[in-house]
């Protein structure tokens, strides 16, 4: 049963809420292991959906699921050590909600029905809101309020988008099930006007969740106020899930012969997100906010790559994997930095190279990776997106793309240099330890390995995921 991938974290989450924390932490890691195992089984096609009307395994869904599951495992190992270091008043709730969050994200990845996908994305908001709110500080409260309010409005608009898609079915006299797989077979019969309207609302709705500008305003607040393991999950897993909602809709439009329309919208949103990130990252005062803006930038890159099509789509999918790996690693390192300095401001940090050599290595390597330096995978993915865009002759968009990349690198590198090698006089609060550094290294190593050696099954899955919107490695 495919549904167990969602149900297991749900059940263990409920159990963990009523058990003492020491057992809860074990449950967290064990569930993560089980989840990864089930995901691998789904990947090789051993589990079949029990409700094929609502759930199915699509290549793009499987890709997001595998990334989510792997990252969750690493983050859960980190979280155990992080939780023992911080004093958290309601830790059982934290562990429970983290598992619920995993359940809802798995549901997004496996959903095939339009409304089930929508419900799942709505569920991710609800399950992650308590995680951000957990510190109960004024700023955490503010971040949660913005998160819930903005994302609820976005999700409501996405519901309207779903209605429009259903309407386009009615006008076209389509009587298929309202699932993405069924609709894409009869996509040409759908009414194009309402399908376009539906796509706009779906992109605005799911794009809010994905952090596309100008609907991104909740993202820096939520990512900076959440505890670091949650920030890593939000950035590395949740944004991908929201992207999946956008991607599925784009597939539908492509099948209906409206690919140009949706591509241009995605390119527009993508470039705008990158430019907004470039402006705001430049004089950023908090390092977690800096990472959050970098997430907005990278979501923009993915949307841009998907919009360009062809070779760039392959680049975008690679980018999705590597961004998740590297960005979660960076957020985990930022958790160590926060524990060590006790402040989220860049001005209150410095001299990490001497004080926290291991964290500094992970953070600096992660920064190099996210900026697109080899040997990390983002180098390849960004290169492929740029090449793909040149093949399509999109000269103006690609110059904006490169300009934004350069600006972001220039802005962020100044801040990272200050953190790693700047002056710092006071002492440190909590020393780094291996249990909290190794997960960051593991994620970076995964990106490095995938850059030089891509397993064949992964490669084939990416190819079949992008083939639906006309992407291939041949351009």
């Amino acid at each position, binding site marked *: 049963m495919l549904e167990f991938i969602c149900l297991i974290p749900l059940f263990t989450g409920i159990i963990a809420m009523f058990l003492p924390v020491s057992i809860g932490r074990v449950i967290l890691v064990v569930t993560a292991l089980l989840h990864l195992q089930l995901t691998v089984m789904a990947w090789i096609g051993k589990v079949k959906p029990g409700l094929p009307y609502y759930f199915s395994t699509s290549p793009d869904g499987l890709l997001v699921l595998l990334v989510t599951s792997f990252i969750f495992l690493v983050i859960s190992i980190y979280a155990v050590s992080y939780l023992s270091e911080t004093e958290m008043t309601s830790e059982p709730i934290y562990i429970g909600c983290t598992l619920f969050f995993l359940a809802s994200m798995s549901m997004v990845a496996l959903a095939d029905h339009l*409304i089930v996908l*929508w*419900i799942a994305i*709505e569920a991710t908001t*609800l399950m992650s*809101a308590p995680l951000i*709110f957990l510190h*109960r500080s*004024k*700023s955490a*409260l*503010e*971040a*949660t*309020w*913005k998160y*819930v*309010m903005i994302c*609820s*409005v976005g*999700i*409501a608009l996405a*519901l*309207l988008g*779903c*209605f*429009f898609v*259903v*309407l386009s*079915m*009615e*006008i076209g006299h389509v*009587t298929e099930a*309202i699932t993405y797989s069924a609709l894409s077979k009869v996509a040409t019969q759908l*009414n194009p*006007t*309402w399908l376009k309207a539906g796509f706009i609302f779906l992109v605005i709705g799911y794009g809010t969740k994905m952090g596309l500008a100008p609907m991104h305003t909740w993202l*820096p*607040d939520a990512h*900076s*106020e959440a505890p670091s393991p949650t920030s890593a999950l939000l950035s590395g897993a949740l944004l991908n899930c929201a992207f999946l909602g956008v991607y599925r809709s784009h597939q539908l439009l492509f099948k209906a012969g409206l690919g140009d329309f949706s591509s241009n919208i995605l390119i527009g949103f993508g470039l705008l997100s990158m430019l907004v990130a470039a402006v*705001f990252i430049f004089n*950023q005062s908090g390092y977690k*906010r800096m990472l959050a803006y970098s997430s907005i930038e990278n979501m923009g890159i993915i949307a841009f790559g998907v919009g360009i099509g062809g070779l760039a789509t392959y680049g975008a999918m690679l980018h999705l994997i590597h961004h998740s790996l590297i960005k979660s690693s960076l957020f985990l390192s930022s958790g160590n930095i926060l524990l060590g300095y006790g402040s989220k401001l860049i001005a209150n940090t410095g001299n990490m190279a001497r004080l926290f050599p291991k964290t500094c290595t992970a953070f600096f390597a992660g920064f190099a990776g996210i900026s697109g330096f080899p040997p990390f995978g983002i180098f390849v993915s960004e290169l492929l997106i740029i090449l793909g865009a040149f093949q399509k002759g999109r000269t103006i968009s690609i110059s904006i793309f490169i300009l934004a990349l350069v600006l972001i690198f220039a802005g962020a590198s100044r801040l990272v240099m200050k953190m790693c090698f700047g002056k710092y006089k006071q002492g440190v609060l909590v020393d780094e330890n291996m249990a909290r550094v190794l997960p960051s290294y593991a994620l970076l190593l995964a990106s490095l390995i995938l850059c030089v050696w891509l397993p064949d099954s992964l490669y084939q899955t990416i190819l079949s995921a992008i083939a639906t919107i006309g992407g291939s490695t041949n351009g």
Partner: protein
Amino acid sequence: MMPSSEALLALILLSVLLSLTSHRLLTLIHIMAFQGIMVSLVPLFHEKHHTLAIGSILLLQVMILIKGFLIPGFMLAAVKKIKMRREVVPLISYHASLFIGLIFIVVSAFIADRIQGTLPGKQTVLIIITAITTLASGLFLLMSRHKAFTQVIGYLIMENGIYLFGTALAKQTHTQYIVEFGVLLDLLVGIMVMGIILTNINDTFDDVDTAYLGELKD
């Protein structure tokens, strides 16, 4: 469509305009309850639903119960608890808000006129006008008011607009209660979470003014 349904839609439009000008929270909640009931009744008079199934009648009652009584009751209790009576001076004044509401009606009439031709079957323009106006006014209320409470009401009005859109556009046979189901889920869950955070904002700041929530910015 029967004239009675048009009267219903006119009442909804009026309630939307009223909600834009009222500054007392109790009035706002009463308007909300009234609007909720009216909106839930619309499918009853809609020509497509002449042959109402048992399921849709049941759903209709659940809708009225939740939109007309449960949520407003919940909000009334919350208002009493947090001892807040009126909205402070809003970002955009009440007269200007009313004027903007009227502009919304004109614009949505224009949009409705344009999209009517693409719709299947006979459609009255009024329901689409009402839906777009309600949606836009809800969004406007959400953005232009300080109190977290009024923002939640704006969200509810927006949700009403989406529901109207859904009933106006979708055939019952095909959607299998997707519209009702989706909107109810959205409402219940959204209100639950917002309610929890709302009381927490009140506990922390002794107020529900989102002007206090201004620490995080760039």
